[in-house]
């Protein structure tokens, strides 16, 4: 993103995005909030999954902790939303740092499975605590202001993307990429792998928790099953992989494109929407395995050959 033209384009896109809620219909604004929160979540997953190479299924846990932290602070302790959001985020980050130290020793499938278990455990715990409202969940105070939530979500996407952009061009980011590409070699070259992985996991957790807190206040209702939904974590992964894991704008592009496709499909052909959505993802993985970001970067050079090259390179 060194070219001034690209920067100007991004700034223009941002202005347009920020202006949407003042002109668009309420249903479009609501679609926008969901899309932006998904983009932020994907960007958060990108840090641990895309850059560090650890396929986390624990990000929906951080999302849930952010939701519950915010809700409990507002309902039980009557704190303002901002402080509740901060509290929820701190809880998620502390949780990520503590558990990260233990489970980031596991690699590959083992790490994925362990984080998967984390989500189930959290659902069970939260369903049985008085302070979290047990199975019935919590109802937050109502704030009518979709525009506010939209802009808040957009701000989160921008902040998350700036963090990722910094990572991509920093010593920290090079350490993470080295870990992803070859952890043993990274350690031999002087990367403190444990510390870097825990930091990446915590950063990822902070972004997920912020998205969870914003979503909870917007929706005004949370329960254990929806707050710690593994399906949401799977969505983060699909969106990131579709957009381009380990790239700066990929997860955001992925969230925008897939949210759009999914919205059109579910309104036009609601009964078989899921089927078509699945087909889109399969086709994407086969023809552009490095995601939308890579397609945009290299399409100029290869043109339509880009897709053929990918199919050949991966022996599909």
């Amino acid at each position, binding site marked *: 993103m060194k070219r001034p033209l690209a920067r100007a384009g991004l700034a223009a896109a941002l202005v347009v995005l920020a202006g949407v809620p003042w002109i668009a219909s309420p249903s479009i604004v609501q679609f926008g909030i969901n899309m932006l929160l998904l983009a932020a979540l994907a960007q958060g997953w990108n840090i641990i999954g895309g850059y560090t190479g650890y396929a986390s299924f624990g990000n929906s846990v951080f999302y849930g902790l952010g939701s519950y932290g915010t809700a409990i602070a507002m309902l039980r302790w009557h704190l303002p939303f901002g402080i509740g959001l901060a509290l929820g985020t701190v809880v998620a980050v502390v949780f990520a740092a503590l558990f990260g130290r233990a489970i980031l020793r596991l690699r590959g499938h083992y790490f994925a499975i362990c984080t998967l278990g984390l989500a189930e455990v959290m659902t069970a715990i939260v369903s049985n605590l008085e302070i979290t409202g047990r199975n019935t969940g919590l109802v937050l105070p109502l704030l009518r202001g979709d525009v506010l939530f939209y802009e808040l979500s957009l701000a989160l996407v921008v902040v998350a993307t700036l963090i990722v952009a910094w990572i991509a*061009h*920093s*010593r920290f980011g*090079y*350490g993470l*990429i*080295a870990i*992803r*590409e*070859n952890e*043993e*070699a*990274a*350690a*031999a*070259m*002087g*990367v*403190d*792998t444990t510390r870097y992985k825990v930091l990446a996991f915590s950063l990822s957790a902070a972004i997920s928790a912020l998205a969870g807190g914003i979503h909870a206040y917007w929706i005004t209702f949370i329960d254990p099953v929806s707050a710690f939904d593994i399906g949401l974590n799977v969505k983060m992964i699909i969106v990131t992989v579709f957009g381009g894991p*380990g790239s700066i704008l990929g997860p955001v592009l992925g969230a925008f494109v897939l949210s759009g496709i999914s919205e059109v499909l579910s309104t036009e052909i609601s009964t078989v929407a899921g089927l078509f959505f699945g087909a889109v993802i399969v086709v994407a993985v086969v023809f552009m395995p490095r995601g939308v970001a890579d397609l945009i970067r290299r399409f100029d050079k290869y043109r339509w050959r880009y897709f053929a090259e990918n199919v050949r390179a991966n022996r599909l």
Partner: protein
Amino acid sequence: MDPVLSVRHLTKRFAGLTALSDVSFDLGRGEILGLIGPNGAGKTTLVNLISGAFRASEGVLLFEGAPIGALASHRRAKLGIGRTFQIMRPFPGLSVLDNVAVGALFGTGGGHRQLAIARELAHQKLAFVGLAHRADRPAEALGGPDRKRLELAKALAMNPRLLLLDEVMAGLNLAELEAVFTIIRKVRDEGVSVLVIEHVMKAIRSLSDRLLVLHHGEKIAEGEPQQVLSDPTVVEAYLGRRRAPHEGAGT
């Protein structure tokens, strides 16, 4: 002169198998020590113990006089120990230049904090090993000999005081060998101590100041290359005992 690396009674056991047994030696500043031995002699195990990939079962490791046996890999790298891997481990998703930049960003003393400086340094190291023209290629696109050079450049970018080279010369032709020799000698002339594992006997003989021979995890010889290579024990380890004709049948 104080040795850069002192190894005392180093032993490594893997669940019953003793890969390295009671090995001791010193490595001086600016010295090139060749480490040879048949397959399975424990050469790579020794390198892994020094770099911190493995922990020793017994024995002491001193680097510049300080014990390092309990330190994690990255701490040893920070102290100034750089290594290459026998099975080459580039970071395939990064360009050749960025692979080397990782070494400059971390490495001895924690490396350079600024990416721009690190990449500039990486450029110099790539030019030094003759890979500058490949700087922008993805690392996975490099062929065998170039990968060896990349491994070397990555380790050099760490600015190490002790360089552990695990078979950086295997599979190179004569001209490429000469080029790598020149590089290693230049590095040594800057005061870096080098421990080099090699299979190519001619190569190691002319490059090393001293040789250390391992066999079945034990040190069987150490000293001047000529003297070591004519040692009957070493010859036997490599070629096997010449059998008497009547013992030969049925084996």
